């Protein structure tokens, strides 16, 4: 999937948003996977990854760390999201030192991700560039809503639900943080960044206030 690539929204919103993924190829580097994946989940937790998960099991808001570890198999793919460049640097340093032979991918602002690689003495190999959205763009919701919904690359978070959450926050029925967690539950991979989502939800509320 290209699910972490097309996160939309203004550049400033990406300062606290770095998706991490670890991949293997069957028959090429699928050696000792279960143990490696379990150790990587522990590493992500120790570095404070705000969400992480396994598409078949769920993410840290819908299941426990221990259950994620227990459910890892030779077929698993694990991924998550960091909220600072320093976490990416530490993650890359650890992955380089452990030399698992697995592919490590980081999605985020190009200049920041390349800088993190350089700080961790890692040499990036290739890149998937986003050339944005094409076609009938009039079908799309406003940019701030897309900035939230595109954080689940499989689009399990609907624009109408984001609007519903904004209404609930405005009426004082839920906090922005809790609303963001509720949305994060729908992203089974665990790459939806609730910290970023809660900031955007607050921005949307401010915008509503000023447009009145």
């Amino acid at each position, binding site marked *: 999937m*290209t699910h972490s690539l097309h996160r939309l929204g203004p550049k400033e919103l990406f300062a606290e948003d770095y998706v991490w993924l670890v991949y293997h190829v069957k028959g090429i580097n699928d050696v000792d996977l279960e143990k490696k994946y379990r150790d990587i989940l522990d590493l992500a937790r120790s570095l404070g990854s705000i969400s992480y998960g396994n598409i078949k099991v769920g993410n840290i808001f819908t299941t426990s760390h221990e259950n994620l570890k227990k459910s890892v198999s030779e077929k698993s793919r694990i991924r998550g999201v960091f909220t600072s460049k320093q976490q990416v640097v530490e993650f890359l340093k650890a992955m380089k030192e452990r030399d698992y032979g697995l*592919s490590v991918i980081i999605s985020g602002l190009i200049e920041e991700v390349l800088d993190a690689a350089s700080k961790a003495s890692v040499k990036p190999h290739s890149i*998937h*560039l986003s050339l944005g959205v094409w076609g*009938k763009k009039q079908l799309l919701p406003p940019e701030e809503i897309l900035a939230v919904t595109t954080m689940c690359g499989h689009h399990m978070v609907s624009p109408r639900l984001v609007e519903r959450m904004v209404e609930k926050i405005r009426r004082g029925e839920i906090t922005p943080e809790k609303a963001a967690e509720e949305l994060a539950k729908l992203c089974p991979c665990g790459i939806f960044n609730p910290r970023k989502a809660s900031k955007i939800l607050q921005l949307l509320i401010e915008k509503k206030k000023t447009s009145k």
Partner: protein
Amino acid sequence: MARIDQEKCTGCGDCIPVCTVGAIQMSGEGKAHVDLDACVECGVCVRSRVCPVNAIYMQKLEYPRILRRVFSDPTMTHKLTGIPGRGTAEVKTNDVTLRYDWGYYGMCIELGRPGVGASLRDVEKVTRALAELGVEFVEENPLMGLFEDPSRGKLKEEVLGERVLSLIVEVKFPSELLPKVIETLKKVEKEVDTVFTVGLITRITPEGGIPAISQLEQLGVAVRPNAKVNMGLGRVLRR
């Protein structure tokens, strides 16, 4: 197939905003129902457990309707398309497979994304246009199972009436073909009744340079500031 038990439904409306494509509506009798043409079978209405009375349920799907689920529900692995899983490895394992080395680009065109959904008829408009340029459709992609004739980009007749949340067309071509590919996409974007995302896969120089960016800018294509970087830590462990 996503259905709502009309006996159980209380008409509270909580499920309406949860549906990824806006396919749940309220009927004149004050009960929720699913528009089966619009529904892409993603399963979110059930997985989210939004319904307080458990009125929403999934019915068994037959071919070709099951393709909706295969391409829209990420929790599902289905071999129907002939390719295990539904995703592609694109840049993620390029350090190990070297599918996209110097001299070539990879491109992922994801129809229906973000969040609009796409008909397979629109997918075929893109595959036919790209096939004319002689690009290679990447084998390890669930799309391959839908082709009647990949050399013409033609999909099987019986699948054309289906709709999916999104579907990735992954192609590989020599880098000098990029201007033609972009020109084709600029044309086809006016013909489809949906949106699509475009991504270009390329190598990074040892100094951290990305020559493709200036080539794209010359073609009038804006590159987003965020991207997906393969860190080059993968290697062959089995011979």
